[in-house]
């Protein structure tokens, strides 16, 4: 999903279910079994391998877009249907799609939390 985004990274190699894992009113990661539990990901570049579990992850991400607490962009290690759909529908409903970049597993593993990152329009990730 193309687009521009910029922000500090928040990264984990552990997949996340947004339903039960992401507070759509605040952007906090609330899965208490997840390593990013307690972190606020609103406005950040959220780096996760993929979404796990619930089919409702897409709806949660759409709600968080409407509430203004979605991540600025996402980086995954594979194409993730649940995240991509949230971006497509956010565009369709609210003209607010956001970029999602799938990178190679090797590239994914080099990204740590707290870096300044940009996703470019042509689908590259630039880390400072």
């Amino acid at each position, binding site marked *: 999903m193309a687009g521009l985004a910029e922000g500090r990274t928040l990264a984990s190699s552990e997949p996340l279910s947004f339903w039960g894992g992401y507070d759509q009113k605040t952007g906090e990661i609330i899965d208490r079994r997840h390593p990013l539990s307690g972190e606020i990901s609103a406005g950040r570049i959220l780096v996760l391998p993929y979404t796990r579990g619930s*089919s409702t992850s897409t709806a949660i991400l759409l709600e968080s877009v409407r509430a203004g607490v979605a991540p600025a962009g996402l980086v995954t290690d594979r194409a993730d*249907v649940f995240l991509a759909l949230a971006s497509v529908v956010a565009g369709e409903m609210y003209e607010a799609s956001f970029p999602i970049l799938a990178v190679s597993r090797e590239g994914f593993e080099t990204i740590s939390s707290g870096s300044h990152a940009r996703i470019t329009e042509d689908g590259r990730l630039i880390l400072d």
Partner: protein
Amino acid sequence: MTPKLTPKDLALLNGEEGPAAKMAMSILNRMLPVFGVNRFMDIEAAHIDSTVYMGVATMEYAERLASLGAKVAVPSTLNVAGVDEHGWQDWDVPGDVAANAIRQMKAYESMGCIQTWTCAPYQTEHRPHFGQQIAAGESNVIGFYNSVIGARTERYPDLLDICAAITGRVPAAGLHLDEGRKGTKLFRMTGIPKALQEDDSFYPVLGHFLGRKASDGIPVVEGMEVSPNEDQLKAVCAGGASAGAIALFHLVGVTPEAATVSDAFGGGAVPPAVPLVMEDLREAYAELSTADGQELDLVVLGSPHFSINEFKALAPLVTGRKKHPDVDFLVTCSRAVRMIAEHVGLLEPLRQFGGRITVDTCPLTSPMLPDRIKHLMTNSAKYAYYSPGLLGVDVTYGRLSDCVESAVSGRVGRDEGLWVL
């Protein structure tokens, strides 16, 4: 990959079937490359999880489609909603949430969907059959359709399931195809006592283990010494789809596409077996609980929604008894199962016990629980997995009889004989 759209796909995309079908097909078409394929295929049925009310956005989406005149093209069952339509006033649901959730329910009803309102549609008369191509949302339903019935659905997100139902089309990908249904990892149960395999508490834990260890793959498990019943298999699905993204598993000798290990791997190469031992299961069992005390405010059963056979198992445990006055006891099920259970006399003993029933939804999808509830006990891996994050409670996982005994005593207690050894 250049998309290969059929004349029907193009007609949908160009709005010849109306504006709602155009919107649905346009979303599907943008998603096609994400599925990694370039063509669509027909489905025969759908199960719609977009019914879950998560806030104004999910309602606005449903109402946008409804206002454009959306109608489903295939028989489409509905998953749980944001409220028990006719029972929400008995709980702490805010009035504005109920009003919006009911608006969302009405929007999906207006599209011609079947008003099942359940996360166990496979335990209604709308159960699909082996080999049927379906677009299903709701992770446990996806697992059950694929694994237990041998029907074929990909993991469809909310909001996309309804697009598939309106157009009758899905990307020709993944679990819809023979190639996508082969096992990816083999576990061999080793030294798991038969007595444990016969116990209800085993199956949610097995599901949780598979979710944890085979996360997004297709696990194959061999070495079952018993024939689990349908509700036990349902519990595996719910556990595997909560702790991981399991959309299909094969239990050798049990599930329909796994008569043999070779079948489970589609006749292809079988990877070396990874032993599945008691230590693994004990770890998964421990992970399902977050509470360390005995305090108890609520026992909740029925995720996925309770079946008639589960009500049959519950009735003798509660008959002639009373729950502790400080503990709430809640069972969630579908309207249809409630009606049947009532008809055959299974609900009266539960009411006498002090138990309550919620239909159409559950505490994970409806903001129905009072704030005082902080300590929860359940026999469901799904309730156990999601309650701490979604409800801010501590949870204890235990088998059905432990849940009932704890509700009577008012303190969490478990018979852990089979687990501790």
